[in-house]
């Protein structure tokens, strides 16, 4: 297999030694079918065991290895050497504090995922324990794409609104809330409305659309948020006009 020499420029930061992040160069002989993650693993195994980064599945599903590759939020296991120039810059995800090297602090987004109540809320009793809900394929289709989010947080790294205002709930968490709102089994939409329609919720989004462009799983959080805005506006007018609101 052909080998191509890639100059990796990796952001390093050791909070116990460094005042601020800096870049370290590694020259990596890459096989032609490698992803950037393979190049990082080569650095870790052969060149510098002190480099810190997160990874696990190497198959685009665990969401650990989101990083900035040449300025673009990406999964390193899904970004291939063949599609990149000879010089590749790898940085930790934008808009997050850097814990160490390529590892960012995720506390804020973990709390936001929690905040939107991402679970089935029932007002009526569910079917008996051995009976499932009936859900047509059409009803599943409504929210299926939104279930594909792997929480890699690339969308937060791409979102300037989140960068400017950390109170914004942000793309992945809002999309997750919408996923449950659209699920025919859920009755928690009105519970979530207070959080989502608040000023840190959907209205903080100015539809830059970057989140959807970088999403490695094509979840399209930007679309979800616009749908929620339309939903929210309809709900507002229904209430103003004294019409019955959404039953759930």
């Amino acid at each position, binding site marked *: 297999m052909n080998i191509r020499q890639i100059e990796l420029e990796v952001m390093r930061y050791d909070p116990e030694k460094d005042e601020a992040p800096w870049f370290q160069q590694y020259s990596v002989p890459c096989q032609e079918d490698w992803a950037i993650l393979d190049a990082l693993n080569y650095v870790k195994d052969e060149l510098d*065991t002190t480099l810190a980064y997160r990874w696990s599945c190497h198959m685009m599903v665990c969401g650990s290895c989101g990083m900035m590759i040449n300025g673009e939020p990406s999964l390193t296991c899904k970004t291939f050497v063949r599609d990149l120039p000879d010089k590749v810059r790898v940085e930790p995800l934008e808009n997050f504090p850097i814990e160490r090297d390529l590892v960012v602090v995720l506390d804020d987004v973990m709390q936001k995922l929690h905040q939107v109540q991402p679970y089935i809320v029932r007002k009526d009793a569910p079917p008996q324990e051995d009976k499932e809900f009936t859900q047509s394929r059409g009803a599943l289709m409504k929210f299926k794409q939104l279930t594909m989010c792997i929480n890699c947080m690339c969308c937060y790294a791409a979102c300037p609104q989140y960068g400017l205002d950390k109170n914004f709930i942000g793309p992945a968490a809002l999309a997750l809330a919408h996923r449950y709102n659209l699920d025919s089994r859920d009755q928690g939409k009105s519970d979530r409305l207070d959080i989502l329609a608040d000023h840190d919720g959907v209205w903080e989004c100015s539809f830059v659309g970057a989140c959807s462009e970088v999403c490695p799983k094509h979840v399209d959080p930007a679309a979800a948020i616009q749908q929620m805005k339309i939903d929210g506006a309809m709900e507002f007018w229904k209430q103003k006009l004294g019409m019955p609101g959404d039953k759930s």
Partner: protein
Amino acid sequence: MEHIKADVVIVGAGGAGLRAAIAIAETHPELEVALISKVYPMRSHTCAAEGGAAGVKRADDSLEMHFNDTVSGGDWLCDQDVVEYFVEQAPRELVQLEHWGCPWSRDDDGSVAVRPFGGMKKERTWYAADKSGFHILHTLFQTSLQFPSIKRYDEFFALDLLHEDGRARGVVALEMRSGRFFHFSANSVIMATGGAGKIFPFTTNGAIKTGDGMAMAYRAGVPLKDMEFVQYHPTGLPGTGILLTEGCRGEGGVLVNKDGYRYLQDYDMGPETPLGAPVFKSMELGPRDRLSQAFWHEQKKGNTVETAWGDCVLMDMRHLGEQKILERLPLVHELALSYVGVDMVKDPVPVRPVVHYMMGGIASNIDGGTPMPGLYAIGETACGSLNGANRLGSNSLTELLVFGKRAAAAAAVFAVQQDGPDNDSAMTLQAEAVVARIRGLLQQNEGVESIAGIRREMASSLEAGAGIYRDEEGTEATCKKLAELQQRSSGIEVNDKSNVFNTDLQGLLELQNMLDVAECVAEASNARKESRGAHQRMDYTERDDETYLKHSLAYRQVGDRPRIDWLDVTITRSQPGVRDYSGDKK
């Protein structure tokens, strides 16, 4: 060192750990659960499971059939009381997941759809396209967020089990972000740390699957059971080892050699079935052990296809058509396209067997209980003997749920019934000893060995001696090699001396865990002088029920190779018989 007191400590927040945590939170909200995980829960390797979860669903299926498939699939090494409980609880647990919002794929009438799977006599695999494990994991994680009694400790790397008078008392863990050590004490400890595929060079497993829980239990004197049984999944992508789900074959994909011949018919899984009309329990729907062994023979015969990544066979799915492939198998379609550049709609995909699952693990019973009171084990890290000598695809996702829940109940009851530790200071001393050991590793200078170097030697030695086919000479050589590597691993220097997110140190600790687990695999492979399920010996080619209808137990001996002991298999109603994969044609 910080001291955290909980009622139940769960190590591992994948499918099994989360299911157990939810079960305790639901039934015993007054008990505090400390859920420790070395990664954020949604990174756990449950997310990589693709095909689905087995549970009887259709009217023409029965618990009896699921039982028989599982027991014969496991070559009669399953504990049958465990299998009976499993098949009975499976549908209920899968429905529970549906109530929690799992986006299962649906039939026309809106009920959950099921697909055929290898070694199963009926369609009974519930699936969410080809991301079933991913959806199960995220559903469980999201559901767990509503329970305040579950306290999560994400990115805490568990180091060792604390125990006193033979009873589990807690664990010591390292907070990765700060480098601080934590002493968790609890009356019940549940290990749910997943498998150890990373001991092999070529595996579907993620980087995190280093057998940590198995090694912790083993070091604490708990035996590892049936470690010789390592499952090779027959269809991994060459190069990366990425899994192409059995669902590919369940939906009708076929395996051919370099001549385009469906070679499985030559290995007792024929007759050939018509293209696009798979027959249960035959040809491509045979069990994983048989299919992987068939590859080995084809390779020996020179019938495999040479690729840039080594010898392969081809999985042909073109006849399924684009629509079906994109609807039911979108992830594997994308994976094959990205990693080997093959569009399965248009071309056959090269595949080869790849280490996928450990049937063995911490010796546990139907309650998840281990020989050490207070210690429970569930999921891949456990060997509750549901899977015997060969796991059937889609049984393990359900296993996480069924036994996650059951072990949680047992652990909760145990935690309530027991008093707190009599001697807290003894536990503190034990915890401090663990910390001293780790600090010692950091202080070592001028190492002559490297983590990656020892890991590579371990993996290639294990593949050579304890791969798909084994013999005395090979396993013995591997046992010796691993003992040597244990010695040499003490010569590794951790270059990174810092506190914050020290993955160099973590890498060494994981390597130590893997070496312990690898030794058990090799030693048990050496000791079992018969061929059964996934354990195939070239020098003992037949199954020997007289001597080896028994579980192997690997015990740690300080400074020596593991000691192997034997334990009877529980048989309730199915006596060992012939595994028939001719689709009832015989």
